[in-house]
């Protein structure tokens, strides 16, 4: 996650996280305590971020899960977690997105780690318009937020097993897309979805697939401290 933000800062005149002084630790709110949320939260804790985690209801319901699986994270009501966060990671089941309150994350940077994957999760009307990628539809509904698509194309177990420090020859590449149109290349059925690729292989796979003039930028999301 560190590397992503730095890439973004390098790339844009206006950094996405403007208000954070270099001294203060970034606060991440992970929404979702299912398969994916706790894994992302744990990786973020290990990388030195301040992490809160929320499910759809009372934080008491996820207190034990948080204590055992994500020690160091704070279970919160979603609204509370989001309010204090610099970055929100959306890792809820996609079928619950239709009833997700968009005002909750207004003004926030939202990492969309979700996928529309009918063979696994069933058909959902909201995401059936195949002119648009799932993150484009998410961005349309969350129009007050800045959506970044990443962490969706790696399996949650690989997210743990595959963590490597910067510079490791077997470090796996992940795509980070702020152009959500281009981010469609990261979706299920695409060339990099679920694939374990080094940076050069990843770039080649994306280039071969896309006709966009500026494909999804490529970054290494794992922490520098990661092992």
């Amino acid at each position: 996650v560190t590397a992503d933000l730095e890439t973004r800062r390098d790339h844009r005149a206006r950094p996405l996280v403007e208000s954070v002084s270099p001294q203060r630790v970034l606060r991440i709110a992970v929404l979702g305590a299912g398969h994916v949320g706790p894994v992302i939260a744990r990786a973020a804790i290990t990388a030195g971020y301040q992490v809160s985690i929320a499910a759809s209801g009372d934080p008491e319901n996820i207190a034990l899960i948080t204590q055992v699986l994500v020690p160091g994270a704070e279970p919160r009501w979603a609204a509370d977690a989001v309010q204090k966060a610099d970055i929100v990671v959306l890792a809820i089941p996609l079928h619950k997105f239709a009833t997700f309150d968009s005002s909750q994350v207004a003004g926030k940077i939202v990492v969309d780690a979700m996928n529309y994957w009918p063979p696994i999760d069933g058909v959902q009307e909201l995401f059936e318009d195949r002119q648009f990628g799932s993150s484009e539809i998410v961005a349309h509904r969350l129009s007050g937020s800045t959506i970044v698509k990443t962490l969706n194309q790696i399996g949650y177990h690989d997210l743990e097993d595959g963590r490597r420090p910067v510079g490791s020859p077997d470090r796996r590449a992940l795509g980070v897309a702020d152009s959500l149109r281009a981010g469609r290349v990261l979706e299920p059925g695409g060339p990099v979805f679920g694939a374990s690729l080094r940076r050069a292989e990843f770039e080649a796979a994306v280039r071969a697939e896309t006709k966009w003039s500026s494909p999804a930028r490529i970054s290494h999301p794992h922490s520098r401290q990661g092992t």
Partner: protein
Amino acid sequence: VTTSRSADVGDPAGHVARFPLVLGLDTFGDLSGDADGRPQSHAQTIRNVVEEGVLADQVGVDFFGIGEHHTDEFPMPAADVVLSAIAARTNRIRLGSAVTVLSSDDPVRVFQRYSTLNAISGGRAEVILGRGSSIESFPLFGFDLADYEDLFEEKTALFADLLTGEPVTWKGKTRASLRNQDVVPHTEFGPFPTWIGVGGSPQSVVRAARLGFSLMLAIIGGSPARFAPFSQLFQQALERFGRAPLPVGVHSPGHVSHTDEQAREEFWPRYLELIRRVSKTRGFAIPTKESFAYETGPRGALYVGSPETVAQKIAANLTALGASRFDLKYGMPELPHHALMTNIELYGTQVIPRVRELLAQEAIPALSV
């Protein structure tokens, strides 16, 4: 074991000691191949599974499980019927589902089928409830995958009620209400063992503890050791709900043959073909020789090799996960029946005794994480 140590729930050594070691086999009814590897019929596949279950009993396997599937490569929608045939020809081995897709089934019918199996087998039935990889049952029976959580939550709770053996009063959204309903056949010896199969959902782990079901960890890829926190979460949740400790099991795929090389040669092409076929819909990366070597090595999830290799890996992972049960999911679509029979024989006569020996020793080499 000191007082403070025994209070340390989730302590791996404590678990293995607390529950009897159970070493089983699971199949999904993988479509059989003939001696030349050509696919056989669904009917022959089912008859082969009966023979495999009978052999498992003869060679000392503790449990034989059949996972519900509804596809051409896994033609196995009626596991309980096949288990009944095995029950009629055996008298020792425990028999169960691995898994029953309860969300797209009726808990009352599942209870009735498995309590019938329990009667036929003289109390040897078990059930593992879960989603498995069998999502095809949802459209087949008219269920919406988006309702998965609600279906599973309601139906597991009703199943827990049915297991008590008392008349059931129940009301929910997913089936007709029951009022003081006596559900037959009654079991002779109390509730049969019931597990919840969990792939990666912490909420399912907590649900299993809340309902008093044992926990079966389905580990089909990546490092088994990363599931250790789930085992710990389960024991802590049981304590939180005021329940006594319950066993944790592990289900993983593999193949045993005489040598490591032979096992890999038999397993690899079928494994590659299966994952290639489902990769687009399931999001699995297509395996490479390199990824296969990792998965079959000490830190991966596949138990493919000689009896010694597989036994060492089972013993190490049971210890790392605080688990007392291991079910090897044997077979792959179009693997010849004779290779499966060899696998079962080696598992029963060599792997199981070796795992028991390894776990009886004081020092078990833990997986380095």
